[in-house]
């Protein structure tokens, strides 16, 4: 708290093509999570513009931003952020409630999302009954259930051991390229694990002091 103005993300110009797997690397406080929040519509830029599907997020109303978060993007967090009082099924159903998806469609959509992350048999379990990796998979299922075109992941492996982190990124890679002729999902992952980023991302953007300090294409 204070009067000093911190520019968490400043002078960023970044274009992300549809279907790209982008990894944002950077040290703590470099502004990568802020950039992700701006892309998610959770935060608003003080100046500039952010276009998603041709719509400027900076000029959207609160309702429009909520619609963007509900229908266009799916979010995965480092701390999973599953609601502990709900079962996996109920957690995954939550975005469907918010998007006002008819009740009759929900069980199939929830089942599909949980099966995709291999948690179908655990649908009645509460988050506390699951391992960290399973919780993150459940969070991914929740992010996917509304069939977003953009998947945003903020340090998805941050709370996981390296093997589980690898599994999660492999899962995200599968979601990115679903196969069977389905369109690729745009994935933007914030991480500090360069090795994983180099293995799975189409492009890596490095941030420092709120600015993009580097860009590379590992593949």
């Amino acid at each position, binding site marked *: 708290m204070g009067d000093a103005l911190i520019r968490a993300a400043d002078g960023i110009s970044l274009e992300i093509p549809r279907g790209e797997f982008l990894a944002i690397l950077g040290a703590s406080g470099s502004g990568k999570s802020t950039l992700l*929040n701006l892309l*998610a519509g*959770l*935060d608003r830029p003080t100046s500039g513009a952010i276009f998603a599907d041709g719509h400027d997020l900076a000029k959207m109303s*609160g*309702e429009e931003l*909520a*619609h963007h*978060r*509900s*229908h266009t993007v799916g*979010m995965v*967090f480092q701390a999973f*952020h599953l*609601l502990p*009082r*709900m079962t996996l099924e109920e957690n995954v159903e*939550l*975005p469907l*409630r*918010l*998007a*006002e998806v008819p009740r009759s469609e929900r069980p199939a959509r929830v089942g599909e999302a949980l099966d995709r992350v291999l948690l179908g048999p655990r649908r009645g379990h509460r988050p506390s009954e699951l391992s960290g990796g399973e919780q993150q998979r459940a969070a991914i299922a*929740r992010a996917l259930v*509304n069939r977003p075109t953009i998947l945003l992941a903020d340090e998805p492996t941050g709370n996981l051991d390296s093997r589980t982190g690898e599994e999660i990124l492999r899962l995200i890679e599968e979601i990115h390229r679903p196969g069977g002729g389905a369109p690729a999902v745009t994935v933007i992952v914030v991480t500090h694990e360069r090795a994983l980023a180099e293995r799975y991302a189409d492009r890596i953007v490095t941030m420092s002091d709120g600015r993009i300090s580097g860009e590379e294409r590992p593949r």
Partner: protein
Amino acid sequence: MKLGDLCELAARNLRESLLRNSLTTLGIAVGVASLVAMLSLGIGLQQLAMRRLERTGLFDSVMVRPRQLGGPNGGARQRFGIVTTQPEAVRPLDEDARQQIAKLPGVLEVYSPVRFNAEADLVSAGVPAAPATSGATAPSGAVPEAVPGAPRRMTAISGLPNSDSTNDAFDGMQGRFFSSQQAQEVILSNDLGQSLADDAKIQPSALIGRTLTLRFPQRQARPASAADTTQTGSQPPSGAENPTELALGFTIVPAEKQFTIIGVIVSGQPGAGPGGFEGSGAYIPLEVAQQLDPIQGSDLRDVMGEAAAAHGGKRYANLTVRTDGTSAVAAVEASIKQMGYQTFSLLDVTRNLQRVFAVFDMFLGIFGSLALAVASLGIINTLVMAILERRREIGVLKALGAADRDVRTLFFVEAAAMGFLGGALGVALGWSIGRVINAGTTFYLHRQGLPSENIWSVPWWLVLAAMGFSVLVSLAAGTYPASRAARLDPVEALRYE
């Protein structure tokens, strides 16, 4: 988010902090119970007062008279106190009119009140009463033996219809009400009963079963031709044929009648319609009184030139219309006025009384609402605590697509649910308190030797209004927490540990 989903989430949230939410709901329940208790007492007292007034027979009655002075349809006009009679089109208050009024919706009965003066003497014990024959009067010469040394008492006699049996003046009466409208029975007022008992040196209750002789001036119709006159069962008029009497169509003869005393009123006086405020010394069945055809004050009209015979039928000076409740009085009055008659009722008095009780209820409601106001602070506290506890959950909801409106509505639904449950519980609690107080009042009244009274009333509209008010207060209390939750920055909320 759809309302059904919001309600499900709200119910889940309320179940999570069961103890705290239950205590908050209980606080609301106590507030609503206080409100219901206060208002029920006010309504109960109002209904008690109205019930007592209605049972006097004064407030559900309309007095009807022919339109006479300055009416819109012409007739006699009054200017500077001078009444000038003109050829008029005043509708007579005759039997046709009586039957027409009796057919109006809400009308129970229409009758011509009978009130006359008579001498009342108690027949000595042991003297058999003269055989009571309906409609027959004894010649005044055959006076049964009165109580020795007792003064002759002039008193007012009123005829009462059967509907007066519910009049609260008869509550606690010694004896009973008339067995029928043809019964030769009399009920004594407290004053007359006491006087007669003192004369006979007995208790008033010992008068029941004794015989009372009434001597009164009787109106006797005269045929148009004196040659056709036949007198049966009555003393013939004395003196020569009087041209004035012939013109009037009736003569006045002394008559007497014996009645069996069946009751003595302990306290109060039955109001015999708007014309009977003063109360009478004794009461006989209305139909018997009409058959006696006694001379009444209204007969002066006939003497002044409006003889019934001249108009070719029976006319009433006034009629009393008994309705099936005070609510029917206004409509009945309006209908009768449209028929061309003057009306009078005490409805305005009840209206003023209702106004007084409305103010009384308002004050009781304000005091009752104070507890609810305190309970609303509990709702604010509970929901603010919920925001702190569910800060990250709110952030997650917003990240998943919840709009500010959804979060606000969620908190409002939770507040409304607590208000609704608290309201329902409070109404039940208030009703229970009322039952207890009513039972206590009944017990106290019984110990005082008084009949039990229902001073408590919880009408259905009060139940709905109390629950609605509870929900409204809860929603108002939820406004601040809901708005605060809706404004929560999702990024900050997601960081919250």
